[in-house]
């Protein structure tokens, strides 16, 4: 038994779509309070992994515990413990920057006063105070992404999933978002993120898993990985 508790433990996750095998047995362990980056190119199965771990999709085989609960048996408890920012924007474009997180607060059953305080604080922290009265659809990509993240944090989850949080963002917005993730980590939140960029994984993660051909072909710290990658390509 480990002394540290794990936020995520997955073993032998498999998933196929029709004849296409996307995951061919993925094992991962993410200790509480750490940042794990799943690195892989387009179509590697990053989103599929996130969807399985967040109860959106059933794996064909394998098992996982997320926040201490079985993803199949205790899906409702898993959902109550996590926050998810999907790959694609999950804001209601017709609602304003403030109404979007307020909707989340309502769904999380925060009382009015607490909802107002939490939402105000998040808008401030994510540099969204000026956009609070505007329809979310009118915001820039970077702002929408930050609003996405703010909505994920309304219920103060201790484990969050970020699927390609900065893909398509300008360098400046990307660095802002990295800053937001680091603040979360400083608060002790566990982060599972996916990315196509080694640089992003290197900047944020304690451990990096490289997904290729449906398996984790390498798993290590950023420093080790940088040492491994040139070696692997020369063979």
């Amino acid at each position, binding site marked *: 038994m480990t002394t540290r508790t794990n936020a995520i433990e997955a073993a032998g996750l498999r998933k196929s779509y029709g004849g296409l095998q996307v995951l061919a047995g993925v094992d991962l362990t993410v200790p509480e309070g750490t940042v794990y980056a799943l690195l892989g190119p387009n179509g590697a199965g990053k989103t599929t992994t996130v969807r399985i771990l*967040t109860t*959106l999709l059933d794996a064909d085989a394998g098992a996982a515990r997320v926040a201490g609960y079985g993803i199949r048996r205790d899906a409702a408890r898993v959902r109550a413990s996590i926050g998810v920012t999907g790959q694609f924007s999950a804001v209601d474009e017709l609602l304003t920057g403030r109404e979007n997180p307020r909707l989340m607060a309502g769904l999380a059953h925060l009382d009015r006063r607490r909802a107002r305080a939490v939402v105000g604080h998040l808008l401030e922290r994510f540099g969204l105070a000026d956009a609070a009265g505007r329809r979310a659809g009118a915001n820039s990509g970077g702002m929408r992404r930050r609003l996405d993240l703010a909505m994920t944090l309304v219920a103060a989850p201790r484990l969050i999933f970020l699927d390609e949080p900065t893909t398509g963002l300008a360098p400046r917005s990307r660095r802002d978002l990295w800053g937001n993730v680091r603040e979360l980590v400083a608060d002790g939140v566990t982060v599972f993120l996916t990315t196509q960029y080694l640089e992003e994984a290197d900047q944020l993660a304690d451990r990096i898993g490289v997904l290729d051909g449906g398996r984790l072909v390498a798993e290590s710290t950023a420093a080790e990985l940088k040492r491994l990658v040139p070696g692997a390509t020369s063979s």
Partner: protein
Amino acid sequence: MGAGLPGAPAGDRGDYLTFITPGILVMTVASVSIGTAVLVATDMTNGIIDRFRTMAIARSSVLTGHVLGAMIQTAHALAVALGAAFLLGLHTAASVTQWLGLAGLLALLSFAMTWFTVALGLAGPDPETASDLPMIFVLLPFVGSGFVPVESMPSGLRGFAEHQPFTPVMDACRGLLAGSPSGADTLGALGWCAVIGVGGHLWSRRLYRTRAAK
């Protein structure tokens, strides 16, 4: 007005209005439900549904929200349609209880139809397609007892018209408006609403659980 139509009930225009009003009411319910299919399909193309699905909320509460929204919208649209019919000269012999019965029946129809169109919205590949199938519901009153008596139809069409779900619903509404409700029509209407509503609800829940946003 309608008196000149072959097979239409003879009488003044108030009589004809009384005859077609149930058809108009059912079409009103159906047209709101098309909008619901589009809204649901649009939701599904947006990541926000996935967000809801990863939250600790009842999985179908988003869908229930759509159904309630559609029912409120339907109530408004029905009030407008009835108001217009009265302005044009609709007369009714319905008692207060029969009015309540009519309101209840239309609410039930709206509930059943929107659960069904929610399922269609979830099943369709995109919002455009999602609106095609429920279009049929708006046309169904024409091939039922909505605008001309079923007895006046050619035999093939008549067979369909007599057995399609909207016919007993419209006949029940007509009976209530006339102040002489028919037990058989009302039972038929309630039965169809129950089948459509329960079927639509179960189908929606199943699709919502399994379908991933694209």
